[in-house]
């Protein structure tokens, strides 16, 4: 449904590369996540795919329409939710919805079934001005407006940024339900934990794709052994871990610190820590998450770049 081939975008006179020969494809009905921090190139990719920007290299198609030559066809058929939910602040909820329905040549009634599950959550505010809604409500309204014309493909650019965790979770529940209607969804997010709710994900940093696969395969093919360590003095722990002989990489990870080790023996680490004077330590096997994968790939990427 969506195909990118060596898509490239540069900005400014110095030709700063924002998107660096990115290639991947999204199948029909897939929920695909583009995961990466600010400045990784996610928004640039979205804007090229929705035909708002011209690429500087490579090509891409959406539903077999070329993003440069067939931009009209793409614009008439996709749903787009740009960052910071651009809605008409001084129109009410229902006025916004009506407007977008009409712009796409349809009515709210025609495709109401599609947005029903989402709309019922904000229905009681249908006369409230969009500017006066909370972040979570705006998000739901923006999604409805993007869906109202029953698009085949949905582009959601960081839809959960700046929204409270409860709304975030509800939003992903909604996306899962939409997927069942065979709508292809391309989402971008900086939150690693949301990656797990996608069918497949692409990890992106500084315009380059680090990896593409299902979340499960990415974590299971992590490669190294990962241990989780806890102690009373986390800061000292983090400073000490790099000097453990078996350490490949170590970093903070919330309550526990994560250590990638060559020698997969928790007890060995525990012993070493005690020897270093740490008390109350706990060393267990860690569950590898997408964030661990990302951190590992980031490290590799940096070495790659340095070598170039």
């Amino acid at each position, binding site marked *: 449904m969506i195909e990118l081939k060596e898509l490239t975008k540069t900005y400014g006179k110095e030709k700063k590369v924002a998107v660096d020969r990115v290639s991947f494809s999204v199948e029909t009905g897939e929920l695909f996540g583009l995961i990466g921090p600010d400045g990784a190139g996610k928004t640039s990719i979205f*804007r090229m795919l*929705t*035909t*708002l*920007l*011209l690429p500087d290299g490579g090509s891409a198609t959406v539903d077999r329409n070329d993003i440069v030559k067939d931009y009209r066809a*793409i*614009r*008439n058929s*996709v749903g*787009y939710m*740009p*960052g*910071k939910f*651009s*809605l*008409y*602040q001084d129109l009410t909820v229902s006025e916004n919805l009506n407007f*977008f329905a009409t*712009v*796409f*040549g349809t009515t709210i009634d025609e495709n109401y079934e599609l947005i029903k599950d989402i709309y019922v959550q904000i229905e009681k505010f249908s006369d409230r001005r969009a500017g006066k809604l909370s972040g979570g409500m705006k998000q739901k309204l923006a999604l409805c*407006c993007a869906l109202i014309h029953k698009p085949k493909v949905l582009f959601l650019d960081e839809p959960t940024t700046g929204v409270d965790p409860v709304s975030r979770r509800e939003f992903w529940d909604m996306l899962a339900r939409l997927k069942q209607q065979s709508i292809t969804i391309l989402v971008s997010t900086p939150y690693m934990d949301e990656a797990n709710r996608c069918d497949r994900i692409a990890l992106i940093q500084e315009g380059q794709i680090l990896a593409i696969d299902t979340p499960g395969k990415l974590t299971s093919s992590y490669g190294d052994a990962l241990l989780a360590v806890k102690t009373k003095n986390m800061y000292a722990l983090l400073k000490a871990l790099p000097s453990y002989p078996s350490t490949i990489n170590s970093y903070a990870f919330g309550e526990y610190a994560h250590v990638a080790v060559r020698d997969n023996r928790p007890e060995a680490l525990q012993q070493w820590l005690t020897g270093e004077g740490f008390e109350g330590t706990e060393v267990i096997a860690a569950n590898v998450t997408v964030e661990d994968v990302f951190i590992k790939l980031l490290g590799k990427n940096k070495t790659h770049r340095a070598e170039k």
Partner: protein
Amino acid sequence: MKRFVTFLRKEFAHVLRDRKTLLILFGMPVVQILIFGFALTNEVSNARIAVVDQSNDNTTRRLIGRLDASRYFEVAQTISDPQQMVKPFRSGDAKLVIVFPAQFEQQLAHDNSVEVQVIADASDPNVATTLTNYVNAVLLDFQQELSPTAAPISIRTEMRMLYNPQLKGVHNFVPGVMALVLMLVCVMMTAVSIVREKETGTMEILLVSPFQPMMVMVSKAIPYLLLSIINVTFILLLSVFVLGLPINGSITLLMAESILFIITCLTVGIFISVKTSSQQVAMLISLMGMMLPTILFSGFMFPIENMPVPLQLISNIVPAKWYYIIVKSVMIKGLGFSDIWKETLILAGITIFMMALSLKNFKIRLA
């Protein structure tokens, strides 16, 4: 104290590194001094006048030659038929007509005095007063010349102020204000409106949809069109009933021309918003970039005829100039469409041109 100095240093850094503001800060005074110093003047020179010489004798010809030679006047037309005397006023070709009676020379020789009729276009009372004063000066001079020693002769003038016998300033002022107000409101409001969509991001969504640029532009202009029509009506009512201004011509024509001018301003506003990407810049350009030229070049404060030629050319592209002429012609002079079709055409032309330019420049992509 040290803290204050710290703040000072920071503020200097901010100011000096902001190139655009610096340009305005230093560039603007230079431009203004040059314009106000050289270009704008209330004095009149080479004003176009017409003469009706019913006598056609040596004295009248000498006098007319004297008028022509003076730096105040340029005799643009010599009219033979007194019935045609109002024509130059209608076409705007002359601001003043001098009528010499038949047998001028004889009368002067016989009676030692003669009367000359001076008719001035008082729709701009300031210019009219200035010009009639100049005429008197030239005549006085001529008188002295004719008989320096002999009995004093007098060439009297009978003044007629056409269109505005009481020389009310409001006749000149209200059309000018109408042009200014309509221009400011229409340009600024539409300019901000489109840019606002760009700033809030809703323009992005609109672009990725089956919308058409023309539809967006027109739909943004129409509310302001209606509001401005109400505005014009209001101004006219105020002028007529509170300021005592007459409407000598057709009200329908006046309203129709006003609507045309409003549309012209709306298209200028649309063009500004198509080219700018921030509301602040749009507002600045509308206010500064449009208001100043309108005040300076519409002709209601400073006569355009007396500006250096380059500035006169610039004034031709200021829509307000043409509207001002139209309003004065219809409202004050009571003229009809046949007299203002040229100006109307120019306004229509500017409108179409701006619209085409806006459509062409409307970016269908973000970059």
